[in-house]
């Protein structure tokens, strides 16, 4: 770890501690959401960033984790067991799914991963006996000492999910697996030729990604205490992590955290000022991001924003 990363982490930890001690519940809710977004982005970054596979399966993992934890808890398991079990369930699911679709590349992989959430949503809808179907599922309330206690507890829990994401990413980056994934990202056929077991590597990292997103979904389910299929299998849950990774830098260690903070700030701004059109503005943000800052915020320093604008608009080239 470089010095800058360590300083950044220390600052983030100090901010988190200060928040946990002093903040009011609104700020605490925002901070909990940042933790959730960061965890999901670290999850996506494992497969989408390091391995370069454009996965849209995050929503499927998240929803499956939420439902696994919900069903386990309504049948009497304590959350301390239900959350890890949900993560494991999703890891196994991701392993099976990865074995089936990770040989696809490019558009085909993207589409296959995109429809998984739709399939799971419909299965959840129909399987009323276990999941409550379209009526949704209410989770048992944890007795944690009132509203403030709840808020602090879930803030800590999401923070731990984010820390888990950072920890896994850090370990993967430093391991042989990380090197292999970078090879796959650069040129998969060449990686195979030099003896990388690409299939095993891809499935392994897909499972890690699934476990992280699934566990995050499990915490989310307890946090909101009520889940329904359209909410937890929402396709936006697949898109937002990609947008955050793009903002912070795809395939970087700290990019997901930066992306989550910036993205939540923008989202909150949109929600507050243009509630009815916030999804539309989000769409415009995505378009602008891809066109002008495809490398994320790092691009802002490298080229002036104006020069990029000039490159984009064909007629302005003559003027600038």
């Amino acid at each position, binding site marked *: 770890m470089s010095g800058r990363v360590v300083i950044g982490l220390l600052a983030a930890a100090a901010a988190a501690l200060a928040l946990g001690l002093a903040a009011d519940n609104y700020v605490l809710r925002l901070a909990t959401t940042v933790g959730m977004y960061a965890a999901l982005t670290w999850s996506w970054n494992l497969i989408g960033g390091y391995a370069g596979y454009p996965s849209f399966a995050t929503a499927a993992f998240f929803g499956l984790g939420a439902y696994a934890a919900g069903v386990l808890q309504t049948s009497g398991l304590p959350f301390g067991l239900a959350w890890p079990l949900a993560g494991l369930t999703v890891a196994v699911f991701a392993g099976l799914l990865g074995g089936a679709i990770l040989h696809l590349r490019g558009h085909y992989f993207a589409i*296959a991963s995109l429809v998984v959430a739709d399939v799971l949503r419909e299965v959840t809808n129909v399987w009323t006996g276990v999941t409550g179907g379209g009526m949704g599922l209410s989770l048992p309330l944890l007795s944690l000492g009132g509203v403030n206690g709840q808020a602090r507890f879930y803030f800590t829990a999401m923070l731990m999910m984010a820390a888990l994401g950072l920890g896994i990413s850090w370990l993967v980056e430093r391991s042989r697996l990380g090197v292999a994934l970078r090879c796959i990202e650069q040129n998969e056929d060449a990686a195979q030729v030099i003896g990388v077991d690409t299939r095993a590597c891809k499935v392994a990292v897909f499972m890690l990604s699934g476990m992280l997103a699934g566990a995050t979904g499990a915490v989310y389910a307890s946090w909101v205490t009520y889940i329904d299929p359209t909410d937890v299998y929402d396709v936006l849950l697949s*898109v937002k992590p990609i947008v955050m990774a793009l903002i912070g830098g795809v395939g970087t260690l700290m990019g997901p955290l930066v992306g989550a903070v910036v993205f939540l700030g923008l989202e909150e701004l949109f929600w507050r000022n243009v509630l009815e059109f916030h999804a539309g503005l989000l769409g415009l943000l995505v378009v602008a991001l891809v066109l002008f800052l495809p490398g994320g915020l790092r691009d802002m320093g490298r080229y002036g924003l104006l020069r990029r604008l000039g490159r984009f608009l064909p007629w302005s080239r003559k003027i600038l």
Partner: protein
Amino acid sequence: MLYLQVLLNGLALGGLYACIAAGFSLVWGVLNVINIMHGSLIVLGAYLAFFAHQVFGINPFLFAPVAGLVLFAIAYPLQKLVINPVMGRPVLITLTLTFGLNLFLDNLMLKFFQADFRKITFDPPLGVFNLGGLLVPVDRVMATATGLALVGALWLLLRNTQLGRAIIAVRMDSQAAALMGIDVTRTYALAFALGAFMAGAAGALLSGIFPISPVTSSVYLGKAFVICVLGGLGSIPGVLVGGFALGIIESFGTLVLGPELALTLAFLLLIALLMFRPSGLLGRRGFQ
């Protein structure tokens, strides 16, 4: 008799489904871009036809080419300005970009048209064909016939006109096409706009049969996915095979599993097909 009726129900939607997916397949094949916005374009076409019927009383099946032309006019500059800068970039970039456009257009339509479902009611009603006990609603036959005519027109355009030959040449090898004097950028924009034309026309046909709402755009996108993967990418015969296959699969799926699981069944089939035959039933192998 029941199975025959179910089969006929499926066939009666096949031409419409081919029309839904033709533009999507064209854009994917030629530009190598998955246009997530395709479903929204279809819904926009449907609303154009809805208002044309409500205000001027125009038959939506006849209005289909007009709706297509309107979307063509919107899509051409959109491709030039927004999508062209990312041509040739990785899948993640192009996919995320069209996702953003999709979010924007969906939200725009939600704001102007509201989320409630609307349906064109024909006066007098179009009725049903009775073929010796087998029933086929007239509106579906008209939609499928018009859809087939439009897909056929696209096929003729691709085969027989200079523009069509240029599009196919760019699809095969854009660099060689550029060396032969084809304006590749312009061809990309025209192919994208043609895709939008088909989407708008398909939307107009849909509005004559099904209730429309901005929230349904992802359903049509999903159908376009399945049809393209079923039939194989980037060929008109593939779209026809995929369209009729999806119509029949949905029809029997509805019979066996109920209507809410019909598309899920199609998605499961899509994943299974991608596992074993990613190039589709008619597609060529070795194309990413």
